[in-house]
């Protein structure tokens, strides 16, 4: 299978990104489309490992060697079949996944992994272009009604699986549009909203009912939800952001990342916004607190909005460039990652602890920070943090974005009213079938797992759907993830 010497014959090539100066002028996706032959050559690098660690590394269990093989042969339709068997939305994961599969690709032991993610996107886009991806309504309906609360990737995956199993699915979304983080959180330059819409239209065509603006527990009583449906699947995400309770937090110009990103996505979608609510980086000195993906999204957005200068600070130390011995393959490599936004600009600082915000007129003007040092962890302990004496510094800023992650789902309202039990970290507690402590109520995605990746959300949604299906039918023919 595949080309045994492919990995020796060709090096890793990823699609080109548009030039920085060009792409920061717009919000279009930043990759130049690939030619199929380029993807085929990259597919030939797959070694068809008998123990495909990528297949383990992928939360969805994508059978990566098999689609690589088909791509290498140019059998795109077969490749798509392989891919869709495990992945509901390869057009999303092909764009926004950090690709744990590539981190665990065997080639990355001593070289560059197969460009799995880009191949995945290529397969998906070819599938849409050729019309191979089309609505697949079930042959027969079971007569069972299932509610899915939350329309992020987990909810959409659960809805698609359940609908295909023949259940009648209604997706409730409290926002005014479907898609959750896909629609509102992730910037367009990473995930074009047309791509999201295309999928939602397909789902609707398959027979999934979408209800937006329905805030369960507020505008729609949970009693009704539980009465109206044979089963409920909670995929409401991990929406409670981590805040920074330091002096001056109440000042204006300090925002949670999600507020900021969401607003930009709405504007791009043509929404008219009250100028007073507008958060923009244009002409500003921006500080982003948090060094993760959301922080990078803020960075890319701020640069596009025309920020003067952007600082991004991270509390933790700068990761090493290469794997450390205690972090061997195929573990997720704790190494320095450069997102495309980082090549567009910005200044990054590590080991930075914010002590206070300062400003005048209720508006932030400065950030007071200190450098910290992390001690080597003693026996299994956590590393200890120390402030470095006399390392205080001040940064002038007029926009601060807090991108420090999310704690757990929102507890009050729906969850409290349904009465599901929570786990130690405040997420919804589920059993092996993804059922919560309330019979017939299931949960998946970040709501159950805690903040994580889109690919995990899809996997969770699939698992939850399988749990719901088993619950309703006594057994399930839906595949496991």
């Amino acid at each position, binding site marked *: 299978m595949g080309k045994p010497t492919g990995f020796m014959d060709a090096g890793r090539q990823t699609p080109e990104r548009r030039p920085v100066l060009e792409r920061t002028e717009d919000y279009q996706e930043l990759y130049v489309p690939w030619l199929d032959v380029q993807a085929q050559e990259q597919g030939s690098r797959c070694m068809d*490992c*008998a*123990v495909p660690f990528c*297949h*383990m590394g992928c939360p969805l*269990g994508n059978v990566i060697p098999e689609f690589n093989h088909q791509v290498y042969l140019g059998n795109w339709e077969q490749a798509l079949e392989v891919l*869709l068997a495990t992945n509901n939305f390869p057009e999303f994961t092909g764009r926004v996944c950090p690709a744990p599969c590539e981190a665990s690709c065997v080639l990355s032991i*001593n070289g560059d992994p197969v460009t799995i993610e880009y191949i995945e996107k290529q397969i998906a886009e070819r599938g849409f272009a050729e019309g191979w991806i089309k609505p697949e309504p079930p042959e027969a309906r079971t007569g069972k009604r299932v509610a899915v609360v939350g329309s992020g990737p987990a909810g959409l995956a659960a809805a698609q699986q359940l609908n295909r199993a023949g259940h009648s699915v209604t997706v409730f979304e409290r926002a005014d549009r479907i898609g959750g983080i896909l629609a509102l959180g992730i910037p367009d330059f990473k995930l074009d909203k047309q791509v999201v819409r295309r999928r939602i239209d397909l789902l609707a065509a398959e027979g999934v009912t979408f209800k937006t603006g329905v805030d369960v527990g507020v505008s729609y009583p949970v009693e009704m939800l539980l009465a109206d449906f044979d089963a409920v699947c909670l995929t409401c995400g991990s929406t409670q952001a981590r805040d920074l309770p330091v002096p001056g937090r109440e000042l204006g110009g300090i925002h949670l990342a999600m507020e900021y990103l969401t607003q930009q996505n709405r504007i791009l979608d043509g929404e008219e916004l009250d100028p007073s609510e507008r958060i923009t980086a244009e002409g500003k000195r921006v500080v982003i607190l948090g060094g993760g993906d959301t922080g990078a999204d803020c960075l890319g957005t701020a640069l596009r909005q025309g920020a003067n200068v952007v600082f991004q600070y991270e509390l933790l130390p700068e990761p090493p460039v290469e794997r450390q011995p205690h972090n*061997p393959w*195929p573990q997720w490599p704790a190494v320095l990652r450069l997102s495309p936004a980082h090549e567009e600009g910005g200044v990054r600082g590590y080991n930075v602890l914010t002590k206070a915000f300062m400003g005048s007129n209720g508006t932030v003007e400065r950030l007071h920070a200190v450098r910290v040092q992390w001690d080597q962890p003693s026996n299994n302990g956590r590393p200890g943090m120390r402030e470095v004496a006399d390392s205080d510094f001040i940064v002038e800023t007029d926009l601060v974005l807090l991108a420090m992650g999310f704690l757990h789902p929102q507890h009050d309202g729906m969850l409290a009213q349904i009465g599901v039990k929570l786990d130690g970290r405040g997420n919804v507690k589920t059993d092996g079938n993804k059922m919560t402590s309330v019979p017939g109520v299931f949960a998946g995605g970040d709501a159950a797992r805690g903040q994580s990746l889109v690919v995990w959300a899809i996997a969770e949604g699939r698992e939850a759907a399988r749990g719901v299906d088993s619950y309703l039918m006594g057994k399930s023919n839906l595949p496991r993830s």
Partner: protein
Amino acid sequence: MNPFKELARQGLYSPEQEHDSCGVGVVANIRGEKSHQIIGESLQVLVNLGHRGAAGCDPETGDGAGILIQMPHRFFRAEGSRLGIDLPADGDYGVGMVFLPPQPESQEKCRGLVERVIEQEGLEFLGWREVPVDPSKLGRDSRRVCPSIWQVFIGPGSRIDGRDQLERKLYVVRKVIEHGAEDWGLTDEEADYFYICSLSCNTIVYKGLLLAHQILGFYRDLADETLVSAFGLVHSRFSTNTLGHWKLAHPYRYLAHNGEINTLRGNLNWMHAREAQFQSTLFGEDMRKIPPIMTAGASDTASIDNALELLLMTGRDLDHAMLMLIPEAWEQHTTMIQEKKDFFEYHSCLMEPWDGPAMIVSSNGRSICALLDRNGFRPFRYTITKDDKLVMSSETGVLNIPPSQIKEKGRLQPGRMFLVNLEEGRIIGDEELKHKLASRQPYGQWLNDYKVALDDLPEPAGLAAASSPGAGANSDGRSDLRQQKQAFGYTMEELRMLTAPMARHGAEAVGSMGNDTPLAVLSDQNQLLFNYFKQFFAQVTNPPLDAIREELVTSLQSFIGCDQNLFEETAKHCHQLQLMSPIISDRDLQKIRKVNVGEVRSITLSSLFDALHGPNSLKSALDRLRAEASRAIRDGYSIIILSDRGVDRQHAPIPSLLATAAVHHHLIREGTRTKVGLVVESGEPREVHHFSLLIGYGAGAVNPYLALATVREMAAAEELNGTKPDYAEKNYIKANQKGVLKVMSKMGISTVRSYRGAQIFEAIGLNQELVDEYFSWTPSRIQGIGLDAVEEEVLQRHRSAFESQHPSSQRELMTGGFYQWRRHGEFHQWNPEVIAKLQDATRSNNWETYKEFASLVNDQSQKMATLRGLLELKKTQAAVPLEEVEPASEIVKRFATGAVSLGSISRESHETIAIAMNRMGARSNTGEGGEDFHRYTPDANGDSRSSAMKQVASGRFGVTANYLVNATDLQIKMAQGSKPGEGGQLSGNKIDEYIGWVRRTTPGVELISPPPHHDIYSIEDLAQLIHDLKNINPEARIHVKLVAEVGVGTVAAGVAKGHADVVLISGHDGGTGNSPESSIKHAGLPWELGIAETQQVLVANGLRGRIVVQADGQLKTGRDTVIAALLGAEEFGYATAPLIVNGCIMLRKCHLGTCMVGIATQDPELRKRFTGQPEYLVSYFNFVAEEMREIMAELGFRTVNEMVGRADLLDAREAVYHWKAKGVDLARLLYRQQPRSPDEAAHCCEEQDHGLDRALDHQLIELAEPALNNKERVKIELPICNANRTVGAMLSGKVAKRYGEEGLPPETIRINFTGSAGQSFCAFLAKGIDVHLEGDTNDYLGKGMTGGRIVVCAPSDASFVPEENILIGNVVLYGATGGQVYIRGLAGERFCVRNSGVHAIVEGVGDHACEYMTGGVVVVLGRTGRNFAAGMSGGIAFVNDEDGDFEIRFNPGLADLEPVTDPEDVATLKRMIEEHLKLTGSGPARRILANWDEALPRFKKVMPRDYRRVLDEARAKGKTELQATHHG
């Protein structure tokens, strides 16, 4: 009294698995003149063959010896009158030689039975004579079971007319006595003793549990001068087990046998099936009294003796009967004359061959018939003297005959026979015999008139309509095919990995690394019934075959239809359907379906069952099918097609194997099986293992309609690299045919006719009820599922096809995951988590991480991947403090790494392992690729890269004297876990110049290791190789590597008796660099079964104390290792785990050489990526030992030795809740065999006696002192005889040890011998030794010769013409790497097999010369046998083709024939012939040189194509000579 009975009941031992082999001899006066001298000389021959027999734990108890002679009338007359018995004239009375129980009252009972039957049958009881014996001559164990031995005299009574009728009646009497033993009320023990050695008016057999030299003293009769015979047929036995039986000694009533019948189970079944049809005018009503023909539970030899007897008694001549049982290879014989072919073809309708290595001598008292089977694996030499004496035996030189008395010296060739007709007083040769037999009847005419050949049948019409697999044809053809595939459980993986390669290339797919998935019965995945069966394979007791290189002996053709009465010959006997292959296309099946020629008519029976009917519908369908089959036979159909076409929502298929075996066994029981042929039309079979099983359980032909449709579909969808549908189908059928042939040849079986119904499989995970009903006599030792679970698995598949699925949530077919790990596929022990943890633990030397790894592996309560996963450790003894347990540094010395050759892995990884193991005082293993001698010198830092254990495998790559002496352990690889019964292969892409140099082979050319060791065709041959290796390196322990299968314990006992120091039992799951996928998956058993059986049998034999038992096969952790010890091992091997420690990530691409971590590759770029370190391995092994220590402390053991064999501390897990595994019963596995007495051990505690003190080499070494010490020239003159074995090896060892690779200068030690040299003469001869022999030699001359020179000439006073007589034996210069050899006479079979450097000249050779040769030069001055140069990939041969017909005996597979014109070639050839003339005075050499210009054009040069390519390349690179020949 006999521990084996108990063991057979409770343990893993099965008596059917006993094997024996031996030496056979005959001395005869051809003119038929009787004398006592002949008997004396026969016994002398027996003694001189003594080394081919064996003794058990009691050195004075042999495995058996005996003699068959003509009825000594004069002697009995005298004895009779002494006893008051009045005997009639010679030939008018019968004498029975009878073993009776020792207790007088039991004797009375048995004698009563004998007398009663004699009277009953109308003969006259004349009296008893107690045979005078001297028990003091017996060994202790033999005496303990010694019967009381009597002769009974029987008169003809009134109704007998003539000698032949009397003989037949005596046969009836004996059968009635045998059958009557139970009714007569004999106890088991009495019945065990009671045995009739012979009962005849023509011959008598004296035999017993004796050593060869004891027989004369024991049986006083044999010393009596009045005891005379015209011949004596003698036999000395080597049995695998110790507690032998008196009755198992040969000769049997008509024959003595050297070899083994592999197809025995099938032969017995077929014979049983025929019995109901027997009718003989010679017997009339008596016929009813004879069946069962075959004595239940008898050995293979006893059984073929039974069959021969039947054919003789019912009127066939001795030679005719023998040829029916063991026909020559006629099917692919291009030059055999038609009448002979007709004879064999006709008889192939009557009876299947008894297949397996066989050298059989039989006699009815009036003639002696000697016959060698088609493969000719057993040696048989004969000498005829001028005074008409014939001496023939397994060896030459067994009787001292002055050379001037010798008229002729010869050997029996493969497939040939000869007959000594004592009445005519002459020897009748093969040609005349077969002509006589072939012209008995118009066989050719009969075939012409009555045979129905499939190929000649008319093409069926309307095939297209019939080729749609499903019955309920959907409108959408494709989805219909999909449902069919789902219903039969096809997976994406098998289509991709097995089916597609077969359809593309016409060959089975190969893979690498081992099998790490669970047994079918432990698997969570849906399993086909096929997967519950494991293939048997030959190891030690008989050789596997090479169906590719020795294709000419194989055959796939057969007849199916209605058999006629075996005792007659009519035209109708061949009125059957002839098939050229057992795997047939849809078109062929249609022809069979439509056939209607005379009585050749077929009927199709449905093998479907009602899927919706609820439980037990499978059972009722089987009952229905059986009843329908019976009815079809009554209705006169001669072919039954079992068809599962028509699977739909309602109908599920009966597993094809179950349907086939159920009908087959039903018809056997009913006595109608031979009236009908079975054809299987099924969607299920699709890989080699499936076809093999169907044929093995009785199918005459298989039509895999769904697999064929799938292949065509794949081709049409352009998934086969452009192979068109028709070709794809042909390729696919061809690949499976070749595969079936390979499976057969693994067991040493040549023809599908004898494989059919031979059931050469072990069931694993099926319960006894299921096996007894449908797979009768198949071993199934751990029990498991029954028919209900079989049904459930079919229904699971059925549901997956016909229950509603969700589009695009499911792919077309299941993913699979049996070959490659998949998340929801089959469980793999080496899964990503386990691999990653092990690498992390050993690289960081982190004990905690190791423990995590170990618990991942050990905690298999959820995933019961292995049998050991089902076991729990019982803490019934008091724990001991950890610090009292022996230290890890001691335990690791018991560890070895697996035999992974340099070549299959890179130099870096091979040397890393060696360094690590040497640092710990443990052992690494070279594998079968030789070793670079530079590694014998330690590195500057003190590390040694020399592997402590050197392997000697069938390829003998790089096995030189220097290699052998630089080892502490020498391992003979009999089999390999991943592909037992097969040879190795190393792809050409992995043989670079260095690897080629180390192996003495041609770089870039794929290397083949022969399936058998060509010097081990049986157990006594193995003992010989052990002896050879011990001679060259007396300090080394000699290991024998076996693979677990049923009966491995018995083989291990034989190995212990062959004086091996260590026996390694490998599991079936071991790694490989290149194996057919079906072998990786379907052959061999887990080591748990093998080790347990080995321990039980060795202890029961009292042999355990003198041999170390080693276990390997996916051992990973301390717990694994402890379990191996508790089951009986004291040393342990690891192979895959160390590779993983060094970076292997189970890519399973070893066979492609693209290993991206630099292990299984020779690509210089990839090798740079190797990151392994000795330290990692040291960490790993220390961790394993530490984990063992923790467990040992808990179990209460301070040393490993205490643990060995303590199976009582293991328990089967109680919490087995798996729906299939809950039926598994491990009681037999856990049976603890206690030593027979306190002085016997359960672990190794003493050394083997290798008998080296008797070696002639001690004298040689003493006489060669000046040469060994100071390189002074010495000259030695000594006589030699056949009992002097392996002469020259020990001396060579001294030379190599002292002078290394370089050896001594030419001719430093000159030795002149006179006489008949024993086996392995000049084995491993070192450089500087020059040996001249005047006389002749036995087999294996110059085995492994490294340098020096051997010259063999006939004695100067010999009266025969040397170039017409056989001078040296078979398998000469096997694996030799250098030196020169001059033979003034003829050689036997397989001259220069695997030669890689010797320059040899000989005056004629037998079949298969230069097989697998990779280097050196061979000159043949005379005629060659067939199949010259098969598998020859290097070196050159020059053949003097005087008759101009060499081409037809030449195998053009790898080499070309060309004239000798190159000046360099001409010079080499001439120089060698001149040297030959000078050294031997050869007549042919003189004649050739005298007419050189005329002679030269007659020579043909045999040039391997690849060899020429490499030579050309080397020349282009400016090298004058190939490196490989440099080092030769």
